[in-house]
């Protein structure tokens, strides 16, 4: 029975830790499907985490935090869009620049406003997105298996996690069932075809980048006001890059990307569980090694499933009208 509880807890925290990855992974997917590589997910996530925590701390309202976080991320997305689309700059360099600038700016502002050494104050439960217990969860707990799944795994997540569950089909629907999605996918494959069809490449790509900014903003918001209770220096800890790797592993498609993010979430949950555990045969694994797990997994995934075979053909290449 204890084993089952362990599994339930593990899956529960898989869902929790996968949330920001899924949001960021979809953000990267939408941008890249339009031809804009977004290595700046990390920076946008961090900026959103900071803005959300700061706004929530000042107003005591998590919704204000969400708004601030999403806006901050969309602002950075706009900068990346401007550099990539209007300036025809190197998209990887632009993304890295944003990551580094935010890594400096966020703690500077945190220090200026809150004087807590680059953090924001600890958020009270009212100021963050706390666990929502789904209806009847308590009474369902006694029902074997189904009840456990409902009560332990599905219930008790924050609002943004449930929002994410809705966002996934929404993004998939947008990409594959709407004319906008058709155009967006087309512009990442062959922008010239889109241009000659009389559709503005520039506008489409800005739209995609902004949608990505919004989704990525949510992933930062959940980090500081859902999973955590405040902003901590470097709290994104490479999740933006993990999300990008998950997107590559997921072949630039929503559902496989979701599954890849869940895998990462699971590994992250596992590493949390393994800390301090005495395992048979190997004994206790030093915490530094369990921390490495997601990063090592990323490298392995990229090593095995790399290649650009499925990548949108025009991704990363600035569109120039005159050749």
């Amino acid at each position: 029975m204890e084993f089952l509880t362990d599994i339930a807890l593990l899956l529960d925290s898989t869902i929790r830790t996968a949330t920001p990855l899924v949001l960021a992974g979809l953000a990267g997917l939408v941008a890249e499907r339009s031809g804009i590589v977004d290595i700046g997910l990390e920076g946008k996530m961090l900026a959103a985490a900071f803005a959300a925590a700061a706004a929530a701390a000042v107003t005591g309202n998590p919704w204000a935090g969400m708004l601030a976080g999403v806006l901050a991320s969309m602002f950075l997305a706009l900068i990346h869009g401007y550099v990539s689309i209007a300036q025809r700059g190197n998209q990887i360099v632009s993304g890295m620049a944003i990551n580094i600038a935010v890594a400096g700016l966020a703690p500077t502002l945190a220090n200026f406003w809150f004087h807590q050494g680059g953090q924001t104050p600890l958020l009270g439960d009212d100021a963050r997105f706390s666990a929502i217990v789904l209806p009847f969860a308590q009474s369902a707990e006694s029902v074997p298996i189904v009840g456990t799944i409902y009560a332990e795994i599905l219930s008790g997540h924050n609002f943004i996690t449930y929002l994410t569950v809705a966002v996934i089909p929404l993004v998939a629907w947008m990409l594959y069932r709407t004319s906008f999605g058709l155009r967006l996918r087309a512009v990442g494959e062959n922008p010239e075809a889109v241009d000659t069809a009389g559709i503005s490449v520039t506008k489409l790509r800005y739209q995609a980048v902004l949608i990505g900014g919004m989704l990525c903003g949510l992933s930062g918001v959940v980090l500081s006001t859902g999973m955590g209770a405040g902003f901590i220096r470097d709290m994104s800890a490479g999740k933006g890059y993990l999300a990008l790797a998950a997107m590559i592993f997921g072949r630039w498609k929503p559902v496989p990307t979701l599954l890849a993010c869940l895998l990462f979430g699971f590994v992250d949950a596992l590493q949390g569980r393994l800390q301090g555990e005495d395992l048979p045969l190997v004994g206790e694994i030093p915490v530094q090694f369990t921390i490495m797990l997601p990063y090592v997994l990323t490298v392995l995934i990229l090593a095995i499933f790399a290649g650009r075979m499925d990548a949108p053909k025009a991704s990363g290449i600035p569109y120039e009208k005159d050749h």
Partner: protein
Amino acid sequence: MEQPFAIETRGLSKHFGDVRANDELSLIIPKGTVHGIVGENGAGKSTLLKMLFGFYRPDGGEVLVDGVSVQFQNPMDAMGKGIGMVHQHFMLVEPFTILENIILGAEGSSDLKAAKAKARAELRELEEKFGFDLPFDEPVERLSVGVRQRAEILKALYRGAETLILDEPTAVLTPQETEQLFGLVRQLKAQGKTVLFVTHKLNEIMAITDDVTVMRAGKVVAVRKTNETSAGELAELMVGAKVARAKSREETGEHKVRLSLDSVSANGDRGHAALKSVSLEVRDGEVLGIAGVAGNGQTELLEVITGLRSVSEGTLRYDGNVIANAAMMTDPITLRRMGMAHVAEDRLKTGVVDSMSARENAILGYQREADFSARGLLKLKDIAARAAAYFESQDVRPRNPNLPIASFSGGNQQKLVIAREIARDPQLMIIGQPTRGVDIGAVTKIHDQITELRNKGKAILVVSADLDELLAISDRIAVMCEGEVVGTLKVEDADEQTLGLMMAGEKRKVG
């Protein structure tokens, strides 16, 4: 009262920096006719088309459609006025189906499913009217070039095109596919559409058009009724002088086999069988031409010969010595030292490094030779001297080897590449697309050079998409189709019709 013209331009001009790409063009295209526009590379045809299609905005002059002056801000405006364009490089999204490509940008509904259903019904009518039969739900990447082109034409018609601009439509077609296209063009004309047929192939102009406009250096130099002119007259108008005749081939006698391929197979980049049991011989003192529709194994053939692709079966020999088989391959540097030179078919992608200077490009492939480096160090003075010598011998302009190679015209780039490749007096030349993107003046010079090398007893293999070119310079022509050599003809026995059937895989011949 006379009917207004489908398209008329008055004093249309466009310049890029100092270059006058289009200079005061005035054109008249009557409704319901097929109008040809000819001119060599760089004559300004593409610029004109892009203005007619709203892709560029003119710097001066005006465009009239149906007698009304129009100002296109973008292609959407042009389509709104009934102008459709089929680009030389198809504007299709490869993973999308034909249907998705056709509705892209003209969906008419934000719900994709509804948009598709609506389009399907309308397309069925168009299909009937013009005699199309297209696999709508097939992804474009799986379709042949001819089918893709018809999809492009249908796409334009679906958007309500009354005037269709076809830009170099036959460049990638077999002669038989070209015939099919002509049939479609006649059908379009019969239904009252106007067609603007842009090409540099004069025989096509003679075959399909009613009128023809000749462009040279950004200007209209002549307008003729097609049945009142000749290919010869048009050629002279295009070039502005009598066309020089190519150097004649001298008798070189029977020579030994320089390069031989014996049942060579190789895989392409996507792992498919790109070459299937190809056997060929090139002898000293002859030019072997390789014909075929692009993408039928010619690229891979060049690559296996020049040490850039491994062989899965069969044997390649140079002067009787094995240079590649399933177990080994010889690297390009060794091949060059053995006497093989390679003019790459895609110059900007492979033959040069476009952002490097002409001087640095002058040693590409030969950087390890003692002339240019010793003990790991570059001999900068010798390299500069050699580059200057190449510029001199080939009359490359502008005479500044320090400029990036990308800032030279295609012809000047190619001249430099050829100078580099013949500098070591190679015995075997492997040449891909010798005159692609090269202006006519330079074409003759390059053809002469190839003939001269042949007359001196060199063995030469030329891959070209241009049948006229192959017929002009080859001794024998081998035709490739789907990775196989479907036949080899002596040039005396070859004509476009036979070669075309072989390119389409409908006829085999061993000669």
